[in-house]
């Protein structure tokens, strides 16, 4: 801008601003004020017009309804919920259900996607072809149809609840989903969880120490095995110390349904499987392109230095590949999270499903939709921030 000012004919000396439209700097400021003004005007018009129309038709506004009793049931919930609770709590149940399917989905899709992506590059013709068939089929079918397919597979393909399949004692598979025995409540299980966390932290500490020692002395230390021992060993020790309880809560058929144990509902199964397999196909392509992006010369150079296969992948190929993989991977995570709103179609109570019921019972569509948008925005931005942080961390530091 500054250079432009200097070269423009008849422009004032740099530093002074003339209030003439022939001055590009002044002109640019005027344009920007006008555009911002127009945006504000349109926004103000839309909001005031909406409020005016709502008031004219005496439609309720505001978020007070969140404190009212919801009075509708929800099929599955991570926290205690009954129809006596408020709309606010019902919405929280929906948010948690969305997070549950998104987090598990992201983890599984990353694992499956990485395997398929690497498999597509396999020198084994059969494995490579199977992987590309998977990618091409799954990627080209709309996710909603896939959800219907998985849902129908459970509700039409499995036997009714009274003739449930019983492959292992205590495990039941029927149209109502999968029921498995879980350990009966005991304080030991909480302590084991704490022990697991301690183990993870300790394993991380050991690996840091081992790396520092190797850098100092050149002596490698089997940090992987030691860490695994800590993560698995500590909880087992806690369990033994707590008297090794073995009592199980086994599902039983009582009345209409199984009671006891833990269950995976057909709705959750369908939405998780559908989203995971769909997104995994895209992640496979991301992983494949990332690995392809690393020049073959890098592998040859690593071999020339005498690095064996696994460290070559871990220390040379992956750090360079991840640079290419992480940004598109972030969009896939965002897609999976947003696609979870398709749950509405198959009856999984995600946040859109519950917010829709709420806005329908209260008639406050605008408030409900802003809540849906706000929540997705927060979740998506959190994923983006985390992935950007991770991307920076793994970025190659050029020396």
């Amino acid at each position: 801008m500054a250079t432009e000012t200097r070269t423009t004919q008849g422009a004032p000396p740099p530093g002074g601003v003339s209030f003439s439209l022939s001055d590009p700097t002044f002109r640019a400021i005027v344009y920007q004020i006008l555009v911002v003004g127009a945006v504000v005007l349109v926004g103000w018009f839309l909001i005031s017009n909406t409020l005016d129309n709502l008031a004219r038709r005496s439609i309720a506004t505001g978020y007070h309804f969140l404190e009212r009793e919801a009075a509708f049931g929800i099929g599955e919930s991570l926290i205690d919920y009954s129809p006596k609770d408020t709309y606010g709590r019902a919405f929280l149940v929906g948010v948690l259900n969305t997070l549950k399917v998104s987090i598990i989905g992201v983890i599984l899709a990353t694992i499956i996607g990485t395997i398929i992506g690497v498999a597509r590059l396999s020198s084994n013709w059969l494995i490579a072809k199977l992987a590309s068939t998977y990618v091409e089929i799954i990627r080209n079918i709309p996710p909603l149809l896939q959800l219907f397919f998985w849902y129908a597979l459970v509700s039409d393909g499995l036997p009714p609840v009274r003739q449930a399949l019983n492959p292992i004692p205590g495990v039941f598979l029927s149209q109502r989903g999968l029921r498995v025995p879980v350990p009966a409540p005991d304080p030991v299980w909480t302590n084991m969880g704490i022990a697991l966390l301690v183990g993870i932290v300790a394993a991380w500490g050991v690996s840091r120490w081992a790396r520092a020692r190797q850098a100092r002395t050149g002596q490698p230390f089997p940090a992987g095995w030691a860490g695994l021992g800590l993560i698995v060993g500590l909880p087992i020790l806690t369990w033994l110390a707590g008297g090794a309880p073995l009592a199980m809560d086994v599902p039983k058929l009582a009345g209409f349904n199984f009671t006891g144990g833990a269950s995976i509902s057909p709705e959750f199964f369908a939405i998780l499987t559908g989203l995971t397999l769909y997104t995994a196909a895209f992640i496979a392509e991301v992983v494949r392109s990332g690995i392809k992006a690393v020049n073959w010369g890098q592998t040859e150079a690593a071999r020339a230095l005498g690095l064996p296969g696994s460290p070559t992948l871990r220390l040379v190929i992956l750090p360079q590949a991840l640079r290419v993989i992480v940004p598109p991977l972030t969009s896939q995570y965002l897609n999976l999270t947003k696609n979870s709103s398709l749950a509405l179609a198959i009856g999984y109570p995600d946040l859109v499903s519950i917010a829709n019921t709420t806005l329908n019972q209260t008639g406050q569509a605008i408030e409900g939709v802003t809540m849906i948008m706000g929540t997705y925005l927060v979740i998506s931005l959190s994923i983006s921030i985390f992935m950007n942080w991770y991307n920076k961390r793994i970025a190659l530091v050029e020396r």
Partner: protein
Amino acid sequence: MKSGFLAAAAAAVVVSASAVAGAATLDTVKQRGFVQCGVNAGLPGFGNPDSAGNWTGLDVDYCRAVAVAIFGDANKVKFTPLSAQQRFPAIQSGEVDLLSRNTTATLTRDTSVGLNFAPVTYYDGQGFMVPKKLGVKSAKELNGATVCVQSGTTTELNLADYFRANNMTYNPVVIESNDEVNAAYFAGRCDVLTTDVSGLAGTRAGVAPVPDDHVILPEVISKEPLAPAVRHGDDQWFDIVKWTIFATIQAEEFGITSKNVDEFTNSKNPDIQRFLGTSPGMGKALGLDEKWAYNVVKKVGNYAEIFDRNVGPGTPLKLERGLNALWTKGGLMYAQPFR
């Protein structure tokens, strides 16, 4: 200048939008040439396209009746199929002029949802349907059952209330589309399907693979007065819808049907003369043609004809008049006087 154009455009938007907001629904409808009516996408007997693609059903006939009252033509109406969740935003935003979609009139909907309910066109109540082979005889035996229900309905709330009141638990499977709810029930995902009794009858007749394998339990757990609805803020439009419905009921009281309506045009009865517009005044009061009620009866029929054609004993739904009989025959159908 570009930004000058922007400002002018913004001003134009302001002016035009406020003009639309202020226009009366009747004028808008007349200018457009048809009534835009929100109906159920697939509920046999109430709102359902037949095999030829023509919309049929009791709710659909009331859309047509309003079109006849305004234009004298039962085909000057377009239908917007709406899910239970879409229906209120659709009528609030003006996407449809009239919501005739087996909608229960309630206090919340009348007030904070911003609707005005016309007279009830079908008195219904919520019931339960179960597969015969479960051997269930009463809704009180449903403790612990899995229940399929459509989201965004009063049904969902009544269900929760009923189980709470009777100290029972249930596991809801809540799905948005009516078709998917039915599919889940018939596949065996749920033990129970719940909706209005008329809806259960329609589903059993039209959707069940073997209708006789399913029974509707005797308990009716709620009052569901189904009524067409319009937006708050346009009294003339509300009056037209309201009196179109009363006209079909009044015609049945008079014994006037689509077949014999022409004979009544010579009637000496002043009530009938006012009703059919042979002595003018009623049409002008509503802002309609004086023959509006004549046209409604002639082209759509009286309430009995509409009922029998869509849901009555001669149809697959096989519903009795019950509460929907005229008040003179022990029912609740009662038209306010045409004078």
